Each structure stands twice: as structure tokens, then as C-alpha cells.
């Protein structure tokens, strides 16, 4: 009959129990748990960071009332544009120039100055002279037509004529005015630049 095998000592039995536990636990922790846990921790920190970012974005919403403000601004702009269009209607267009010239000559005739009057368009004015204050909108001197005007007459006629230049339906700018006494009677020769 076969001899009975030696019985394991308690120490050996405990060793046999502990060894696989330690090996399995080590392998699991080293190759499974740690990488998975690291990934989870990394994701966790990213989630926390995202939550903070979202909380900050929600705390200061850039779009709060922006739509209403934009609509209000656009409405106000429409009103201002309408006013601007109305104001710009006082500026003569190229089509308006003949009628403005006609009005000027009419006024000269009313003041008895039409016989000694010379008005001509100045094509050579490529750049407007510095006659307006700093900050004036370009539209007031760009795309304008410039005319030289020369009239001769007594002071009593010259003065209302000059005053009439600013009372028309369209704005007429007067600059580079030169007024000179030309004879013993005291007649004045007025030369000036009209900006229509």
C-alpha cells in the first residue's frame, strides 16, 4: 500500500494560502487597478475643471440682455439715420448745383449785381481748402462742387447779397472772401469761393 503523503505544516498551509493572494493582488494592483484608477482620477480632475469653467461661464453670462441691447441700439440707429438723411437732404447733390447757381444769380439780380457778376466752376480744386474746423465730416467738403464768384457793387447791395447766400434751400459754403474798394464811388469788388 502506498505510504501516506506528509501532512503540510500550518506554516506551509498559511504560505500556500497567502502566496497566491499576494501574487494575484500585486498583479491586479500593478497592471489593472493602478492604470484604471489613474485614468479615473485624471478624468475626475478634468471633470472638476470643466465644472469650474462652466460655473464661471454661467456666473457671468456674456449674452445676458445682449439681444435686447442690440435691438435697442439698432432702433436708435434707425432713428438717427433718418435724421441724418433729413440733414443730408440739405446738402446739394450734383444734380442740385444748377438750381443753386440759379438761385444765387437770382439773388444777385434782386440786389442789382447781376451785371457785374462772374461765376465759374473750379475744376482744379482737387483737394478742399482747410476752411472748416477740425473734425468736420468729410461729406461737407468732399464731393462738393466749388465755384468762384466775383461781383461788383455798392456796399448796400453787396451786404444783402452776401447774407442771401446762406438762406437758400441748400447749404452753400462761403470761403476765401476778398472784398476790395475798386473806385472812387466806393464800389466793392467781392471775390469768394462757393462750396455747393
Amino acid at each position, binding site marked *: 500500500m502506498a505510504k501516506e503523503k506528509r501532512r*503540510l505544516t500550518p506554516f506551509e498551509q498559511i504560505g500556500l494560502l497567502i502566496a497566491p493572494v499576494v501574487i494575484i493582488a500585486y498583479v491586479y494592483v500593478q497592471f489593472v487597478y493602478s492604470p484604471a484608477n489613474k485614468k479615473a482620477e485624471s*478624468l475626475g480632475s478634468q*471633470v472638476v475643471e*470643466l465644472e469650474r469653467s462652466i460655473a464661471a461661464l454661467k456666473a457671468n453670462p456674456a449674452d445676458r440682455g445682449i439681444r435686447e441691447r442690440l435691438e435697442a441700439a439698432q432702433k436708435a440707429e434707425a432713428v438717427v439715420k433718418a435724421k441724418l438723411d433729413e440733414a443730408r437732404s440739405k446738402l446739394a447733390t450734383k444734380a442740385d448745383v444748377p438750381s443753386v447757381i440759379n438761385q444765387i444769380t437770382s439773388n444777385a439780380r434782386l440786389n442789382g449785381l447781376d451785371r457785374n457778376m462772374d461765376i465759374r466752376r473750379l475744376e482744379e480744386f482737387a483737394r478742399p481748402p482747410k476752411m472748416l474746423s477740425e473734425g468736420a465730416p468729410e*461729406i461737407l467738403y468732399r464731393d462738393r462742387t466749388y465755384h468762384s464768384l466775383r461781383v461788383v457793387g455798392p456796399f448796400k447791395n453787396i451786404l444783402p447779397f452776401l447774407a442771401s447766400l446762406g438762406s437758400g434751400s441748400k447749404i452753400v459754403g462761403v470761403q476765401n*472772401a476778398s472784398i476790395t*474798394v475798386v473806385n472812387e464811388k466806393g464800389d466793392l469788388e467781392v471775390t469768394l469761393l462757393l462750396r455747393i
Partner: protein
Amino acid sequence: MAGDIIAIDLDRDAVRAVVVSTHGRSGVVTEAVETSIDTGFGGMGEHGPAFDTALAALAGQPPKRVVVLTSQARSFTCDLSLPLSQVQKLGREKLEHAARWEIEPYLDFPASEALLSVAIPQHQPGGYASKTTTLQVCVAPRELYAAIEGACQVRGMKLLRLYAPDNAFAYSGVGALEEGGLEAVVSLRNSSTAAAMKRGQEALIFRSIPAIVGNDPSSADELVWAIADTVKDFTQAAGVPERVILADAGAAIPTLAEQVKLQSGIDAAVWSTSYTNGMVKSECGTIGPQYASAVGAALQELGICGSDKHGVDNRIPVAHTLRSNLHVAIVTLIIVLGGGLGLNYYTVHSRTKRLASDQSDLKTTEQDLKFRQSKAQEEEEKIAHVETAMEAARKEIAWIDKLRNAKPAAATLLEGLRGTIPYDVVLYRVEQSQASDREFMVSGWGWRAGSISEFQAKVQEAEWSEFVSPGGIYEKDLGRTAATGEQEKVLTYQFTMTIRLKAE
């Protein structure tokens, strides 16, 4: 018949075999044969011929399941120094380990080679409160078991258990008395004598009796006295038995029952199936007391009589069991550890999955919020642009209104000068500045310097002028031809001045 079993009793000078089957809650003896042998059973490998002898005597085919009684399987009573309550809590292995240690001095072979069966008798001699517990131990050499098992296998039978004859007789179905009644059973074998005290179907006390059946009449007297003393001891321990049953081969001695009755004062009888209250029936005629132990072993094995099987089987050795348990423990531990680690991994994996999902959702939310923020910035820029445009438009409107309402500066100047110029001052030239339409260079002359300076002062104070910068007043001979034809001096004062008009 289903449930058939054969019990083979290997006595010193005879082999007996009984075939017992179950019938309800009783056993039926279908065959009982006895064959004398001359050689006996001393060795381990000598059972084959005896088996063949017994089996050959049987009329029919023997059952496949077999139990064997041999005096080489022995029964011991030992005491453990532990109270019954603690012994009952011990596991089978610890109990067998303790019993092995207790019986080791009485064995003629190594205890590690012993097959054990341990039972805790219901009747404890010291009572339940005693600090010691009595154990009933059946022991047999493993080598013997293997030899008998091998002999059975060769003959196509399966050995179920090996019984010690010195307690198997106690389960020979005796139980005719009223429940709770006591009776003593005495086994008189050629090789040994033993006695037991029974209550109903349970054996309470076992005891070996030194005297054995012999040919010498004086030894018969000695046997009767020994039986009487034993019964007396039983009486002191458990109470007075109502009768004494004499079993096994020695019970056939004539007048033995009467002598025991005479000596012990208790009714005595020889075992037969008529004393079993129907628990054992015979289909093969009357069977003698020599079959009592074999019948008792068969009834135990069939579960008809007794609550425990007081025989040994080839259970796995204790050390092997321990090793198996160690294997089971390791496997269990690995499974538990694996389960735990799996659960842990599942938890970590689930957490990772949930966090990844959360991260995805949060990224979408953040992108949405950032998109809304960029849209809001665009709209903010639009608002700023609109406001800038409105400001420019307002400025332009203001300028246009200003120009529209403004009188030409030259007209304003002339009108203002008309109201301030004295009669003796004459202006002959007015030049508008090219740098500013509100600045004019005025040139003129006067008869007196005082009039000129007075004129300049008035212009300075006029509400239409902002400031006046006098250029100078100087004499000039205008000259003229007098009536006498001579040139005469005409002194005048010429002047220049710069006038800046107030802004309207």
C-alpha cells in the same frame, strides 16, 4: 430483492453468512449459512477462500453489497476530558483525531494506519453534566480493509463497511420489550465475549468480558459469573434489565441461560427472531443465535436498527481531507479574491465610464457656453459699431445744422463793421483767411490815428468778434495836386488788423 445485503461473519472457526433484505421497517433474513473452517483468519490476504466457502453455501446469487464482521476490527470505549456539550461541537475530523490519540496505546499497528468510526453514545455513564465524555470507537487497520475490499471486488461485490463483532450483536433486532424497558445482550463468540445494555433499539453500554466460551466446564462457570457481574454493573449504571439475551455461537451451550438467570436473578433467554418483536423475520426457517451478530450488522447497515453505523468504511484519511480542504480553501480564496478584485475593477471601470460620459457632456456644455459667449461678443461689437456710427451721424447732423443756420462769415463781418466804423475811417480791403473762414485780414486808412484805434477797440468789444489783432497804424502821404498846381502833402494813417468772428 431490492435492498438485499449480505453480512459475512468471519469467526475463529466458522464463516457465517446471512442475506437480509428490507421489508417495510423490518429486516427479512432470506438465507443463513454457516461453514466450519479449520485454518481461521490470521492474515490479511486469506479471506478469499472463506468468502468462497460462504458464498458457495448460499442457494441463490449473493447480493452485490456486503458487510463483513471480523474480530480484527475492534471496538473501544474511551473517555475524552471534555464535557459532552463541547465534544458535540467538535467536527468529525477533530473528534477522530482525539479518538485516534486516545486509542493509540491499545493498538498493535500504527494509529496513522487505522480507519476509525467514532460515535457518541446517548447514555453517558457520568451523566450529561460530567467533565468527561465517553466515546464508542470502532477501529480497523487500513490494510485489512483494503484486503477484504479487494476480495469483495474480485467476487463482484462492494464492501460497504467493516464491523467489529463485539458490538454488532447489540443491534441484532432485540426490542420486544415495551418502550423504555432495559435488556442486557451478551455476545458469546468463540473468540471473544461482550455485553451491552439496550433500551429499545439503542445500545447504551458496551463492555468486553474477559471470559470466553471454552470446552472446560469450569470455564463455563467462570463465564456465567462474569456475565452475572457484568449485568450487575449494568444494573448499577443504567437500571435493572428486565431480561438477559444470550447471542452468538456460545449461546447454544445447554442450560447456560438457566445458570445466568440463577446467578444474576434476572430472566435470561437465547436469541432468536422471536425475541425481536417482528423486527427480524426469517424466510429460511428458524435461525440460531450464532447469526445474531451478522444480523445485527446487516440491520445497522440497512438503517433498521440503531441510529449510527458502528463500523468503519474507507473514508478519506484525515490528513488527505485536510489537504483537500486546503485545496478547497485555496480555490475558495482565489475565487473570493477574484470576485473581490473583479468587483473592484467593475467599480473602477464603471466610475471611469461615468466620468468619461460626464466629461463628454460637460465639454459639450462648455462649448455651447463658449459659442454663446463668442456670439455675445460679436453682438457686443455690433452694438459698439452701431453706437460709433450713431455718434458719427449725430456729429454730422450737428455740423449740417450748424452750417444750415449759419450766415456767411463775410456777411456777418460786413454787417458788424458797418455798425462800428467811424466816419473818418475807410476800409479798402477785406481778405478772408484760407486757414479759417472766421478769420479776416482787414486793411484801411483814416484821417486820424485816434479814430483808427477807437475803431479797433470797438471791434474788439463787439459781440460778433472774438478777438482783434491790430497789425499797425502808420502815416502815409496820399499826396494830391493843389489848385495852384503844386503837389501838396496829404497825410493819412493806414492800418491792418486781423478779426476773428465768434463761432455761431
